[in-house]
């Protein structure tokens, strides 16, 4: 009780002298918002982390389950996001409008929401799945959600018009992850992880391009 009183008194004294804590948000206009640069920095960090996880997960899976099964030859690798018209080289990435690119990024992230949830749950059913793969699957799913939130914030800031929510590809690969035949099931996982690695690399690249274009004026 005595301590509380002492704290209260000291607080009042301090306030009287005009000593207050600094506001967290740097924006003086009262709209407590992070600057766009900060948002992009965080988005790039997240996307890099997600790609790192996806890469490692694919490598581990490849090492553990895909050796000698000839998956890489079979892998035609049509990912479910192939229908989205994402830029395929630097030229296209430079020419596309940043709003469209942002929408595409959002579309890809949304399309991966569902598969990542199922990946996290189905990968546990793989026989003797290593712990590292398991936790990476869960982590990627979590981080993907966070990146999606961040991107929606960025889009809200950058977009002048309305946000296009239509860009999205549904995923119907769940049955293939649950096949009874182990070989086919592992091949489905291999494909999914390969697609995840590729798409996360795409997102990472697009975000860096956008960041350099919008924030640093093409002079990173």
């Amino acid at each position, binding site marked *: 009780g005595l301590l509380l009183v002492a704290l209260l008194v000291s607080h009042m004294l301090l306030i009287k002298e005009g000593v207050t804590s600094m506001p967290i948000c740097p924006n003086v206009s009262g709209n407590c918002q992070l600057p766009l640069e900060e948002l992009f920095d965080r988005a790039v960090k997240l996307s*890099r982390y997600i790609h790192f996880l996806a890469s490692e997960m694919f490598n581990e899976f490849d090492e553990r389950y895909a050796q000698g099964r000839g998956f890489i030859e079979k*892998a035609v690798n049509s990912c479910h996001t192939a229908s989205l018209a994402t830029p395929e080289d630097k*030229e296209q990435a430079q020419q596309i409008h940043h709003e469209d690119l942002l929408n595409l990024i959002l579309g890809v992230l949304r399309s991966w929401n569902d598969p990542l949830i199922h990946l996290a749950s189905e990968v546990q059913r793989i026989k003797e799945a290593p712990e590292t793969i398991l936790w990476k699957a869960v982590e990627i799913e979590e981080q993907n959600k966070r990146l999606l939130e961040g991107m929606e914030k960025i889009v809200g800031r950058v977009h002048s018009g309305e946000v296009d929510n239509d860009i999205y590809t549904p995923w119907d690969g769940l049955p293939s992850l649950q096949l009874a035949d182990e070989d086919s099931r592992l091949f489905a996982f291999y494909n999914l992880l390969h697609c995840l690695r*590729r798409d996360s690399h795409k997102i990472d690249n697009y975000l860096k391009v956008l*960041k*350099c274009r919008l924030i640093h004026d*093409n002079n990173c």
Partner: protein
Amino acid sequence: DLLQWPQISKCRSPEMETFSCFWTAGNLYNLTVPRILQLLYKKSNEEDWKECPDYITSGQNSCYFNASYTSVWTPYCVQLASKTEVYDKKCFSVDEIVLPDPPVHLNWTLLNTSQTGIHGDIQVRWDPPPTADVRKGWITLEYELQYKEVNETKWKELKPRLSTMVPLYSLKTARDYEIRIRSRQRTSEKFGEFSEILYVSFSQIGIGCNHCTEEVEFPWFLVVVFGVCGLAVTVISIMLSKQPRLKMLIFPPVPVPKIKGIDPDLLKKGKLDEVNSILACHDSYKTQLYSDDLWVEFIELDIEDPDEKNRASDTDRLLSEDHLKSHNCLGAKDDDSGRASCCEPDIPETDFSASDTCDTTSDSDQLKKATEKEEDLLCLDRQDNDESLPRLASRDPQHQHRSTQSENSHLWAPSGDSAEPPLPSVHTRISNQNSLTNTDFYAQVSDITPAGRVVLSPGQKSKLGRAQHEGCTEQNFTMDNTYFCEADVKKCIAVISHEENEPHVQEQGYNEDGYFTTESLTTTVTNLGASTAAPPSSELPVADYTSIHIVQSPQGLVLNATALPVPDKEFNVSCGYVSTDQLNKILP
């Protein structure tokens, strides 16, 4: 010469905008003629194989795909083939094969030097490879710097970093250094080629201190030598010192395997009293270890046997096999409050160790040996603690029962004596019933085989036969012994049962040859009818208990079967038990 097929050695993209594939022609006939080997490629969404668009730009045996042919995240397959056959095939996507060019424009500047001028810090700077479009963020590069002194062989590495400048601290101004850098795409693992080597020479900018006195290097060798000597001297002095405490502190004595409280030498040639005291110590330990509650827990009823169900008495339960199993060998005694506790409290470990060793050998054997030894010893010599004896005795039928189960007639074989007739009957009776109710509680140990097995003689049977015909007139049991021998009790029981005429009321198990606790005696209505075995007709005056002649080893006792004449008249032998004093009178 080994035959080498044409092979695609690698495919590489330096900046994620173009890529090239390289191959080796091998030494397969005359393939050096150009255009025999072709590189065909196919994107994943196409059907046909197309030929390489550019065989020249990347050099010989290469194929270059410029930006218009390159789609970054699309899977490609390339194929090395002649007109007739395919030699090699590779599938990949461009983002997986990115290996950047080396950085360019390496240079260094001096940051500062130490006061003595012997060491200096420099800052190394470079530019990213010109092909990689870092400015627009299309590719992000990481750099790894390596440096070494000119005359060294091993390169020192710094951690990969994103920035294009790095300080190097504490370089020796008197020496020259070499620096090289390589780069990789940030999200991949493989590095590109090394850059050209940058030479760092302090003397060139005039601050080299060639004639500076070199710092004396720390004399590691001397330190180690002196340290070892000092340690050795300390150790020797401690070992030789007379101070036991110091010695104990630094060199604690290693415990030699032994059983605490038991001196093996003593067992070999000790006197009976001492041996008993030792074993009693174990007993008293057991009292600490097992409380009554635990005791009861170990008791299990054998429900499958209907007879035994009826005889769910304490005695029966005590006699059950589980009870015995729950004890280890030497500690196969009940808790016995009567024994003097003379042991240190740290006997537990020895008991457990004893049990461990016992468990490894045949359980039944060990148990038999142990229980027999102990109960014989104790019955003979410690009749002061009579409370224990009933329970000890209870183990006998258990033991004998087990012996019959496992060893069949072996243990029952008398040592050449007669008394054969009762054997089969006993045997069959035992085999009929699971319970131990019809086995001898006490039997004389006639001999111990070299293997350690104890040979018993069924002396009690003859006694029983005699006893049954007597009436239970004698109420004055010898009160020094708080347990009663079967003969006496049977007299009483026989009387009681005849009076009450109840064949099978079993509150506590009455065994034909059983013995009774004091309690059981007062409450039991026993069934004498069950004991209608053919009483042995022979009346051999077999001594039930003999003295221990020699204790030969911890596992053997040689009993002197005939050493003890039993003068009936000298002391009250309603039982076959002999008290210590009585025994002492007898012994020479």
